[in-house]
């Protein structure tokens, strides 16, 4: 996925000189995850900048740049480090369009490598996406495959509204996939079209007995769980990869829920007031009569992300997903 994200950035920068990349250690080293590798050499130090170490200054300057007409892509080095820049995102980026009659949105992309499972030290593994989904004015995307990663990157940059781009670091190097060199659309003009193509849920696996609804790093786990359920329980589970976390693809969600009658939502973030709660509410509000069981949730627990020797105990696993699915199936 890292290469795909890098390709998306390169294609966007090549197509539109308004695109700039800012962050801590993004230029010279190409970022701690190498997502921005090579951009400095290709596009020069005016457009690929190692900034001072300050997230509010980083996001805030990006907002100022977008005011002037540039399209900044900001890298937050790790999930937890977005919090010092939280105010700039939720107060300013989220409200700029609204405070300017919709004429001057903050057209920025904030890239956040998030989540656990990579044996990182303390405070490098948060999943803050729900916080951003609760703040009106932001769009939130999260790819689960290399192709989506590239296409979403292009779409996010072309999109006029501020996009929080959640990058599941656990699958940064998993799930190899061919990403063809041609951008799927003209990065300069592709907004609506491009956005529509990726800002909607994707059926990662078809199935009619149960819908596993998830996003990001837990998509491959849900696919594995679905295979397990198929072979051991003779249950065919659909796997819905949300891709867009705000706004949610309510049609796809309700359609899957109604056709399967049973739903399990899976995410890594803590449970209370997480996205699982929103998906569960949407499904019950709209599909109550089609449901044969309450929507289940398999999520991170309501605890701080643990030290890594215990992170597998915290993270939703194939086992936990299968167990959660059985609870829904056996209701």
């Amino acid at each position: 996925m890292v290469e795909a994200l890098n390709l998306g950035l390169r294609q966007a920068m090549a197509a539109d000189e308004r695109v700039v990349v800012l962050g801590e250690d993004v230029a010279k080293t190409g970022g701690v995850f190498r997502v921005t590798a090579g951009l400095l050499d290709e596009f020069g130090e005016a457009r690929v900048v190692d900034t001072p170490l300050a997230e509010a200054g980083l996001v805030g300057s990006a907002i100022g740049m977008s005011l002037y007409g540039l399209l900044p892509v900001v890298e937050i080095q790790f999930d937890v480090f977005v919090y010092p820049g939280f105010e700039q995102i939720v107060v300013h980026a989220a409200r700029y369009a609204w405070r300017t009659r919709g004429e001057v949105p903050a057209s920025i992309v904030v890239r956040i490598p998030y989540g656990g499972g990579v044996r990182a030290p303390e405070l490098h593994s948060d999943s803050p996406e729900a916080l951003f989904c609760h703040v009106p004015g932001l769009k939130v995307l999260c790819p689960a495959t290399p192709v989506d990663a590239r296409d979403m990157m292009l779409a996010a940059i072309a999109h006029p509204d501020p996009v929080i781009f959640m990058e599941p670091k656990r699958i940064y190097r998993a799930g190899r996939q061919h990403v063809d060199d041609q951008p799927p659309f003209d990065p300069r003009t592709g907004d609506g079209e491009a956005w529509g193509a990726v800002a909607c849920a994707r059926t990662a696996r078809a199935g009619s007995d149960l819908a596993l609804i998830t996003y990001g790093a837990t998509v491959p786990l849900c696919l594995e769980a679905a295979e397990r359920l198929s072979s051991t329980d003779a249950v065919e589970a659909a796997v819905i990869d949300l891709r867009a976390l705000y706004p949610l693809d309510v049609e796809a969600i309700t359609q899957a829920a109604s056709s399967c009658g049973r739903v399990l939502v899976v995410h890594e973030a803590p449970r209370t007031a997480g996205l699982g709660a929103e998906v569960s509410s949407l499904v019950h509000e709209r599909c109550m009569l089609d449901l044969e069981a309450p929507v289940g949730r398999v999520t991170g627990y309501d605890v701080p992300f643990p030290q890594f020797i215990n992170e597998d105990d915290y993270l939703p696993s194939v086992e936990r997903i299968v167990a959660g699915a059985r609870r829904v199936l056996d209701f």
Partner: protein
Amino acid sequence: MSDSTVFHIIGDGRDKPDREVPRELGEKELVELWRALLLLRTFDERATALQRQGRIGTYALYWGEEATQAGPLLACEDADWVFPSYRQNAIGILRGVPAATVLAWWRGYGGSYGFWNPREHRVAPICVPIATHLPHAVGLAWAARIRGDRTASLAWFGDGATSEGDFHEALNFASVLKTATVFFCVNNQWAISTPLSKQTATATIAEKATAYAIPGVRVDGFDPVACWKVTRDALERARAGEGPTLIEAYCYRLKAHGTADDPSLYRDEAEVERWMHLEPLGRMGAWLHRIGVLDPDKESVMRAEARDAIAAAVADMEALAQPDREILFDPVYASGRPWTHEEALAELRAVARPPEVKPLGPAPSSGAGEEGKTQ
């Protein structure tokens, strides 16, 4: 009050003598500057009255700080961007933003009633959260440099704002990246009830520039000409690629923090009196008479013009109907309404509209009233 480190041009009639007028400022420019002061003053007094009459909501008056606003604004080129805080709420009227729009903002109007297109006027929206607009000013000038333009940016903020992390991050970014940004601090020595001495251990704000290896300039915040001059110099320096400047406009908050504030709770009004004679409109007016640029007739004509302009704005504001409630959804996203908004609209339309909101004071169910409102 007098302090040799504080640059001034217009004498205070006491220990500060008149100084030479900058070359660039001919009669015409001086009159324009005074006209700007007058317009801002007239707006402020009118807005304060409107609040007392319950025709707008809580208002952050800036009476006495007009020099720190008109001076820097007129020192800017038209293409330069300015970033006001709530205290410079009316600065846009010097850049073509209708005064009625600013009044409407205070009356609680949003959308196209209370906001403007910043690109049209190079005036950012009024910033309420302290110091958080400073990084925006940095990013804008940085972007201009990337695009090869000479555009500079200027941001206003208060003495209290210098305590916020965003102040520090913005000045550090600007100094490292040498952006063409002027940081204009209006040191009125109060942050609501908190005096400067509880805000910083330094004697001045200007000396904080040392932490960024940029110039720190102290100017008499009641002297419009001096404020114009130091800003113009800072802008020239910025355009020459020499980076940002921190300007401290040393003055004093002559009125309440806002219409919700009662200064008698925390300061001695006698102290206020000691500063009152420096009030910029009278001070520059007297000076213009002294140097023969203004005469009583011209002054009364100008005063009448300002009065009429603001009166017309008030009329425009009052002519505004309460915005349709669907304004809530327009426009949160430049890309159009997500389904969540369509659904919300359905819910909204399904109920009768609540009675019209009157700006005056608290909501029926509330008791919070006027106090408990800052900006």
